[in-house]
């Protein structure tokens, strides 16, 4: 899958590039509105990660132009540090697939990209296999063979997030923010997430060994597969 990062902040674009490349994406950059428009005109992308504040114009214009073009199905995720309240609504109204305010966690970005992929290509299965466990994203259930595991909403959310970010460390912080949202001033280094992970692991381990479900020291968790 190919991704176009439209971002004038080069170091940020390079970090995203590094991360997404490791995930197997083919990444291209555009630093300016004009070059982005050129690239979009020539190629079609699976994902366009769009910054709004570009040196030579507004990212919204790119979005508008793209949505006006026929037969283009590029998924657009707006990434912005601009904090105008109506930007989010405007972005989604204009046809963006998602909106992620800066600063964001790369894990969160990846999870959103997976979610969009599933939504766009309905043919793709709504189920993910993890060591004989079957995650059904649609019904939000986890089963092992015939047996359906009785997970709480939050436990499923945690499991799903870790699976989407498989083979990489997901920090407690990122996990907390994903599950509880951006609750202001809520202690991000709390152990609430640990309690849920412990319960989740217990439920998984009751049917099958979970040595692939790793605790990464003081940082967070990783699911290897």
């Amino acid at each position, binding site marked *: 899958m190919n991704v176009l990062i439209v971002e004038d902040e080069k170091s940020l674009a390079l970090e995203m590039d590094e*991360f997404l490349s490791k995930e197997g994406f083919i990444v291209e950059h555009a630093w300016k509105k004009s070059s982005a428009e050129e690239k979009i005109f020539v190629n079609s992308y699976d994902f366009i990660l769009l910054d709004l504040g570009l040196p030579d114009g507004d990212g919204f214009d790119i979005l508008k132009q793209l949505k006006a073009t026929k037969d283009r199905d590029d998924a657009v995720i707006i990434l912005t540090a*601009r904090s105008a309240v109506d930007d989010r609504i405007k972005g989604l109204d204009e046809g963006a697939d998602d909106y992620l305010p800066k600063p964001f966690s790369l894990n969160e970005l990846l999870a959103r990209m997976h979610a969009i992929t599933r939504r766009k290509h309905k043919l793709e299965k709504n189920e993910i296999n993890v060591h004989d466990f079957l995650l059904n994203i649609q019904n939000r259930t986890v089963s092992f063979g015939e047996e359906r595991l009785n997970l709480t909403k939050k436990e499923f959310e945690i499991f799903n997030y870790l699976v989407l970010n498989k083979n990489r460390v997901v920090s407690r912080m990122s996990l907390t923010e994903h599950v*509880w949202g951006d609750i202001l001033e809520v202690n991000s280094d709390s152990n609430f997430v640990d309690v849920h992970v412990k319960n989740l692991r217990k439920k998984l381990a009751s049917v099958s060994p979970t040595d692939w479900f790793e605790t990464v020291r003081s940082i967070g968790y990783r699911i290897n597969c």
Partner: protein
Amino acid sequence: MKLQVKFSLYNAITKIAIILVLGSIILFSLDRLAYNQLDNRLIKKKNKILEHLSNNEIDSLLNKEQSFTDYNILKEEFIVLTDIADNQSDSTAKVFTEKREIEGDVEVYRILNYKFSYQKNWYNLEIGETMTALQSIKNSIRFYMLVVLVAALLITLVADFTFSNFLLKPFYLIIDKKINLVNDPSHYDYQNIPTSTNDFKILDNSINSLMRKINTLFALEKQFIANVSHELLTPISILSTRFENMLNTPDIPVEHENKIYSSLKTLNRLKLIINSLLLISKVENNQYLKTEEISLKQEITDIHEDLEDRIADKNITYKADLSKDFQFTGNKALIHTLLINIINNAIKYNVEGGSITISDKAEAEKYILTISDTGTGMSAELAENAFDRFKRGNSEENGFGLGLAIVHSIAKFHKIRVDIKSEEHKGTSISLFF
């Protein structure tokens, strides 16, 4: 008191005063005039009698001593002549008012008393003229004057009121449209209120230019907030993505890994602080809409779901008994933030095994929501400064400074009054007046 009412009151009071003064002057001079007239007539009559005086005349007058001028059945006047001792010296005429009984009827008369000598004999002449007619004329004049004056008073009052109403109408329009009804400076109507009064024109224009200034400042502030957030949040996102990538580098020493993670946490804290400050600024800059229908009960249920594990973790007894499903219009996300901050504080500063009670009360015009906890509480001094940004409750890492500042600005934005009652080591109770 309204200016118009003051004007009308002033008018009424001055008019009543003028009427009272004028009325009493008129009545007084009327009295004087009438007496003068009467006295002159009496004197003329006396002179006439004295002119035509003869023995015959005197005899006839003396004989009639008891019976009065019989041609005058209405007893409007009388003449009495009496013979008196001869050693009088005084001969001036005296005029006075007195009650007299004439043929059985008591009436008030104006009487001229005159002593004179005729052929060495002294006589006392009294000429009386009834005052009844005069009195009744005086009464009716008084009555009509009163009626006319009161009518004039009422008419001028109504005229005054109508005129001042007409005159002050643009003023009240300016006050209403440009001051009282303005909530959001960005939707201010700059159109001038039509008036021919210069002073109001000046007022109108001054308010307009003030509003223009405020709006420019608001727009500048909005721009500034957007810039600041961009300038601050972009470097944070560069750093945090970089740290995230570093964390996923294989084989980094544990020691470094820990440092990287704690840097990430520090960055996250910075992000939370900036976002909190931005939120407050945006609320104060009126960047949010207040158009959603919000059910307070629903919000509290949602928040409870979100915070359930925190409540359970501290073994807190949570009780939310709302008697009424209060609905109002506002910004849902902001109200959610407001409530979650209060309830989260109630959890954070609670003791192990404490309790949180959410209750409500519907009063005549207000709906009051109270969130009480059995936590550590604050001193009176702290409670007073609780809404101040950057003031910190205790040395814990996440002070409630910004949390309560957010509560304060959101509440203010929605015109909700917030009351804090707190007692150290007993708990805090926060009431919201909707």
